């Protein structure tokens, strides 16, 4: 476990106690692997989420709507087989959407977990070799699970020995087990660490503007996300669940019984339109809630790692401001999507891009810092 030497200003850190920093963040060490792996997972998950939102999410929602209309029209024709085929298509579209959302969310979640374990590493009592193996296990599981989940839609049940679980799911589940084992190992190391002494990591002692702003902003975003989630659960969730059943039932009843011309009766069409809006309202509120809390977490973590961002203070402030601005813009824009349409969708994508660019900038700074440390170490070795 590392011992700190009191609060460090960012300038003092920048001037560098290279030996202390090398000890806290050794070359090829478990901690560095966790930080770089965690950032890469987060960035990969975020970029995937942006691509998914732009190219898959909206076309997929349109396909589901069309298939639901086709199912309702089949009910009107009293063609139960055709209704069944439409729902098979809907199942496929929902699986396509669900697996991509899960891959996105899990990749980012594992990125967070790796970064958090890296942060708490000084409190753990574990040999460097064992910690590195655990870190490799965590990163490997963190990559393989989302890849497995992503391929579920394409692999299906081909050659599977099980009735309802395909090979891609089996791979994803096995990868999840790797992550559980790795985290169990880190938990044992944390418990063995004891915790009698204060958290003296030099990273926790820094007092830079960018670090403080990111941490305060992160806590406020988490609080805002919780308040929004509580409001949603109290005011919307149960009503939406009730409406979901009622609107679908109304569409089916109307198609089966209402007279009149057309592919589907007017009442069924109204119910399906209302159902589409309900789904969109639900999805945007959940997405806003999840994203502001996740961005709050990443802001807290980015604030913690600011001393490792080897850039001028001006650039660190710039990246911190862009990260916080993007973190607020994306959830707010998602909330406004139903009211403002395309303009809000573009704003949400811009917010996501701001977060990605800011994190990429910070990651470049961390890579520069590790290069700087390695240079100092190499010079020491040569001497």
């Amino acid at each position: 476990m590392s011992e700190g030497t009191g609060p460090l200003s960012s300038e003092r850190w920048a001037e560098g106690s290279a030996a202390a920093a090398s000890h806290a963040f050794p070359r090829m060490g478990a901690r560095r692997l966790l930080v770089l792996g965690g950032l890469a997972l987060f960035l990969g998950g975020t970029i995937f989420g942006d691509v998914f939102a732009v190219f898959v999410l909206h076309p997929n929602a349109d396909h589901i709507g069309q298939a639901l209309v086709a199912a309702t029209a089949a009910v009107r024709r009293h063609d139960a087989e055709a209704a069944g085929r439409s729902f098979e298509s809907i199942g496929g579209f929902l699986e396509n959407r669900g697996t991509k959302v899960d891959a996105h969310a899990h990749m980012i979640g594992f990125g967070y977990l790796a970064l958090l374990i890296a942060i708490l590493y000084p409190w753990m009592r574990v040999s460097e070799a064992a910690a590195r193996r655990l870190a490799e296990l965590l990163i490997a599981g963190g990559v393989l699970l989302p890849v497995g989940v992503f391929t579920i839609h394409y692999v299906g049940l081909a050659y599977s020995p099980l009735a309802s679980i395909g090979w891609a799911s089996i791979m994803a589940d096995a990868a999840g087990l790797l992550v559980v084992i790795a985290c169990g190992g880190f938990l044992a190391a944390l418990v063995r660490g004891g915790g009698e002494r204060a958290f003296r990591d030099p990273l926790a002692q820094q007092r830079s503007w960018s670090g403080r702003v990111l941490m305060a902003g992160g806590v406020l975003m988490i609080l805002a996300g919780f308040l929004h989630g509580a409001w949603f659960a109290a005011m919307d969730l149960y009503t939406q669940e009730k409406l979901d059943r009622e609107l679908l039932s109304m569409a089916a009843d109307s198609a089966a019984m209402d007279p009149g011309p057309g592919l589907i009766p007017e009442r069924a069409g109204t119910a399906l339109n209302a159902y589409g809006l309900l789904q969109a309202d639900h999805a945007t509120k959940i997405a806003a809630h999840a994203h502001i809390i996740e961005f709050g977490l990443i802001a807290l973590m980015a604030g913690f790692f600011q001393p490792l961002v080897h850039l001028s203070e001006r650039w660190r402030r710039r990246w911190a401001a862009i990260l916080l601005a993007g973190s607020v813009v994306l959830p707010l824009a998602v909330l406004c999507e139903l009211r403002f349409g395309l303009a809000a969708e573009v704003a949400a994508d811009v917010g996501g891009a701001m977060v990605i660019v800011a994190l990429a900038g910070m990651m470049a700074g961390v890579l520069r810092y590790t290069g700087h440390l390695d240079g100092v170490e190499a010079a020491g070795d040569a001497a």
Partner: protein
Amino acid sequence: MRRPGHTLAVAGLALAVCAMAYGFYYAVWVEHQTLDGIGGALTGAFQDAARGDVNGSHAKFDAYARAKYVYTREVDAHSHWIGLAMILLILAAVWERLALGPTGKSLLAWALILGSVLFPAGVLSQNFLAEPHGQVLAVTGTVLLIVGFAMVAVGFLREAR
């Protein structure tokens, strides 16, 4: 004596491990069957309507709504346990910087741990308990968390000054 920050870290990582183990169990043994049940009930409801069997259709819509209600809470419990575990972990590292007394820090840490366990447990228990009990548990957890996070924000703001 263990520091409250370390207690938060142990509780956070333990909660993350338990939530992931629950997610693993759920993905292997429950989720696929549940999704098949939701899809099957909805398909059956429309097919019964096409055959003119209104009562059968309504019964299947009820089964669809119930299965979806249960699924939502199972997935929400998993994701909220993990999310809250990660918040506990990050707060653990900066706990010493909170401008609160030792007793305040300790009480606040335990309130956040309790809220983080209780809130998703309350959400999940709505599948098993009678109507108000699960909600009461979830609301109690939510209140602990919201008040706790507000106090953490105040502690950081006081530290920043």
